[in-house]
């Protein structure tokens, strides 16, 4: 592929960069993907798993938007589980352990086999800027590439600094160089650059672990794949194991606390509260007798084990001793130490909802550079950035997902209107106020139509998604029209399932609403259902069961949509608006809300402030219409 006439340049081939590049290619863009290390494409820098609560939801949405992550984990996953099966339909979530090496290889070869996509090694040091517009990039070796739009997905590489005890090593992650010039360059271009901290666990040699004494955590017996497009799961499945820290572990850490990079004052930035280091856990929860550690295999062909829960920046000798205070790990050898890493990010409030920079046209940011954490968050942002970069090049309006439409919409809205508040942003289902609408099972129903319309799905896939929607519709019609009569066998079957007998004919759809009813019960009662209802039409069932709540959330979502539809026009200067306190003005100036809804959600914004803006808008609108007459 010739490196001219490029539409989109994507910098970084991590989870964000991969989705950005592939989304752009799907729309027909000519794309160059630059990475500082071609051997680390799609690298999982931290734990070897994809999904989880909130994150699994993101993967399903990525899949519904034609993305790659779901397919890739289905092909390379070595343990699959559904979480929260008993806590409610919307928080049910998929999680899988990945074979890291397979995942990398699979992603790389997918990129290499994609026509219209050029994959090159190169460390970008500068952007090419013409006026307010970014027109390309320059690498440290002086290569220049020009394109209609540029997507930066540089992860933790910007001025990355790793800490182990009192040792400090520049790097993007263990084994990779940090990018030094780029963040200074971004700062010089006026982007608000800040600093975040995260960390990772040591890796253990599995041959030195006594698994026989540990609790086994198997995967699900008949796991469901992430992707709509997956035929099934192919890799051999392996279990994880569970162990716990001991009082010796805690005492050892307490004794050596001041040798931890986090506690010696060498790291200023705060670590994420939801992913604390083991030092943090012991300091903040001194009453806890033990902390759970999951031993996760890093792959089928490696002995490396990821002890999830042991993130640390203690010196290597303390890490080694600490590990050996844990049951099953008495003889364990560390093959790579854990470390903390500090890196630069760009305050995402500097971005539009399209992920384009407000002050630099055609520059899109995605992934950890936006202050997020997690492969799934990165991938979702990457996909949206690649999509909107391509649309910008074509002078098409950006695609912005609503908060009631997708977790991706919630995340981007949170990021651009609230910022990240000092710690990397991670997806939680509780961030979504319309959680019942945003389920894993209905991701395709929610986003499939849009994905088809904007060209993210190829012909056959679009047809398959459409066909699935048709099937669901006819299934609902069938349930609506099928009457179940109060025969003896019927009532006996109902009683056996602890469901009350019926006296009059009941529509199948109404019977299914009963909490204890499921597809199997309907079959027992003689309803002829398609064979794939269990695997393909969970959302029909869940929509029925939670209809009342789902309707309630729809109503709320519509109300919010009203606020979200009220644009705050550029001519309304929030920094000087009378009636707002200095503090509110400052926060609004930082948040730069473009709708009343965003203003209302910005942190520290009082309802009175929203009312004030609304009043101004209304009054000004009145004046304008009067003035124009």
């Amino acid at each position: 592929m010739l490196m001219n006439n490029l539409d989109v340049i994507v910098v970084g081939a991590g989870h964000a960069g991969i989705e950005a590049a592939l989304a752009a290619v799907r729309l027909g863009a000519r794309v160059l993907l630059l990475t500082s290390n071609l051997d680390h494409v799609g690298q999982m820098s931290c734990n070897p798993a994809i999904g989880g609560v909130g994150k699994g939801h993101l993967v399903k949405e990525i899949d519904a938007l034609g993305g790659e992550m779901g397919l890739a984990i289905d092909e390379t996953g070595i343990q699959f589980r559904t979480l929260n099966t008993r806590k409610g339909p919307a928080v049910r979530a998929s999680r899988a352990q990945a074979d890291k090496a397979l995942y990398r290889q699979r992603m790389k070869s997918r990129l290499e086999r994609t026509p219209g996509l050029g994959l090159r090694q190169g460390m970008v040091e500068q952007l090419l800027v013409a006026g307010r517009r970014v027109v390309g990039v320059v690498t440290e070796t002086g290569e220049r590439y020009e394109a209609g739009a540029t997507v930066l997905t540089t992860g933790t590489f910007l001025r990355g600094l790793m800490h182990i005890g009192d040792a400090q090593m520049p790097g993007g992650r263990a084994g990779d160089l940090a990018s030094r010039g780029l963040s200074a360059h971004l700062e010089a271009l006026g982007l608000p650059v800040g600093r975040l901290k995260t960390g990772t666990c040591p890796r253990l040699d599995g041959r030195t672990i006594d698994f026989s004494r540990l609790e086994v955590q198997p995967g699900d017996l008949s796991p469901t794949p992430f992707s709509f497009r997956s035929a099934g799961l192919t890799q051999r499945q392996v279990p994880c194991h569970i162990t716990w820290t001991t009082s010796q572990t805690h005492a050892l850490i307490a004794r050596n606390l001041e040798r931890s990079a986090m506690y010696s004052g060498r790291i200023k930035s705060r670590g994420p509260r939801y992913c604390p280091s083991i030092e943090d856990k012991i300091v903040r929860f001194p009453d806890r007798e033990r902390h759970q550690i999951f031993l996760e295999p890093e792959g089928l062909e490696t002995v490396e084990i990821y002890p999830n829960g042991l993130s640390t920046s203690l010196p290597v000798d303390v890490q080694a001793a600490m590990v050996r205070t844990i049951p099953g790990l008495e003889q364990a050898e560390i093959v790579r130490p854990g470390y903390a890493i500090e890196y630069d990010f760009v305050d995402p409030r500097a971005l539009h909802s399209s992920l384009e920079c407000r002050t630099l046209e055609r520059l899109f940011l995605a992934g950890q550079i936006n202050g997020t954490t997690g492969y799934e968050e990165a991938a979702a942002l990457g996909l949206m950035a690649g999509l909107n970069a391509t649309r910008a090049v074509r002078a098409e309006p950006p695609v912005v997902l609503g908060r009631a439409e997708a977790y991706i919409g919630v995340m981007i809205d949170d990021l651009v209107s609230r910022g990240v508040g000092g710690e990397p942003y991670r997806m939680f289902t509780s961030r979504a106020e319309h959680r019942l609408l945003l389920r894993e099972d209905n991701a395709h129903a929610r986003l499939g139509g849009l994905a088809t319309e904007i060209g993210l799905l190829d012909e056959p896939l679009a047809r398959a998604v459409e066909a699935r929607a048709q099937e669901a519709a006819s299934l609902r019609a069938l349930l609506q029209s099928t009457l179940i009569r109060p025969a003896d066998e019927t009532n006996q079957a109902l009683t056996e399932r602890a469901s009350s007998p019926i006296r009059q004919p009941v529509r199948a759809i109404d019977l299914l609403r009963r909490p204890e009813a499921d597809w199997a019960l309907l079959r027992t009662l003689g309803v002829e259902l398609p064979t794939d209802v269990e695997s393909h039409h969970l959302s029909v069932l869940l929509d029925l069961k939670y209809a009342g709540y789902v309707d309630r959330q729809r109503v709320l979502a519509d109300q919010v949509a009203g606020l979200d539809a009220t644009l705050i026009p550029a001519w309304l200067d929030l920094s000087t608006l009378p009636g707002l306190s200095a503090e509110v003005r400052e926060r609004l100036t930082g948040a730069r809300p473009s709708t009343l809804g965003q203003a209302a959600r910005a942190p520290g914004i009082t309802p009175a402030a929203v009312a004030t803006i609304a009043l101004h808008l209304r009054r000004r609108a009145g004046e304008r219409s009067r003035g124009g007459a």
Partner: protein
Amino acid sequence: MGAPYLADTIAAIATAPGAGAVAIVRLSGPDAFAVARRVLRSNAGGSLGADGLESHRARLARLGLSGRTSGDGRDAPDVVDEVLVLPMRKPRSYTGEDVVEIQCHGGGTVPRLVLEQCLAAGARVARAGEFTERAFLNGRLDLARAEAVAALIEARTTEAAHAAARQVAGELSQRLTAWRLDLLDARSLAEVSLDFADEELPLTLESDLRDRLDALKLAISALAATWESGRRLRDGATVVLLGAPNAGKSSLFNALLGRPRAIVAADPGTTRDWIEEEVAIAGVAVLLRDTAGVRTAEEAVEQAGIRAALELARGADLTLLLLDGSRAPDDDDRRLVEATRDLRRLVVRTKADLAPGWAPTEGALPQVAVAVSAVEESGLAELRAQVAGKLLRQTDTDGLVVLHERHAIALARAASHLDEAGTILRSGHDLEIVALEIGAAMAALDEILGQCDVEDLLDRIFSRFCVGK
């Protein structure tokens, strides 16, 4: 092309119209100090000077009430009032803007002339409730407090004013804010096990959650239940006197009023139509209604009056059913007892000074709550106490009562969401729905504090404020 909102300076007479000795004219807005300087002069007669108005320090000044008045002291006007000026720089003022309060002599004329001078000097007259609206918009008051200001202004008795004043002081807001935090806490208990599926969480989490939800539900519904009392405190209550002809209704009416308003006569059927008067009973502004005696009468006019009386009783907050103590109850009395059985009522035995015509324990008649004599004015205090007891329910909310229907509805909704949350939790069903219900309860409280639907609320609320606050 009007001036931008909140950029202009407003003025109004802040005290109640009438004969008070002192009145206050209040200015608020960016030009409040400038306007004050234009209308005020020092006692020596000259202009106030640049530092003549020091924030939060009262000073004496003169103010011309006619002719041209200007700060430069020329064209001395004929009539001059001596005024006390209290300047307050933003944000330390009621509205959060620059405010100047001018205390002048009261009465109908002087305050109006002072206001006119302020208007001539560049202020515009405030719309109803505009000071409070600005206080709200500037973040000085939350919605619940702003509404309490309205209730305070409308208060017709000291008790009503007291209840409103507590809310202006933020007591309701504080309690709601505390509940909101409790709900947030409760919600976090539910959310933590949803978002952190594989974590080891305390085993007591769900029972802890259940206890919190139950306690909150009780407290919130108790406050919601005070609305009945709160409404009566704020808006007053109607009390209807009902009884057979000649039972002594008009006499009791007059006795409660303390003046002979209704005609009293020995002939039955004296009162043909109902009449009403307002009287304060235990802090409630009571609209007391005297009605036509109810019996099976032939006269058509009276018939209509009787129907009307029963109709009134049904629409009232309380019915006093009067039974003539000097004679044995007859069929008319029994019919009335029957007809009012489902109403909130007090049975009153009248003419207690006369020899009893029936034993208090007489069967088929309801318990007599109190015996009164209009002639001797006995039993009236007891009757007032009983009326108050019926109108104002005892609360277990530390005396806090709800003064707005909007609040009562929102509180009741919050309580019912919490009830639902508790039920779902106990049935062992989806924690996610429990979280949803708690969220809905929080949203209901937020409505009172004004955190959502602000737009709709504003017009409704601020249109109810009087000028001057």
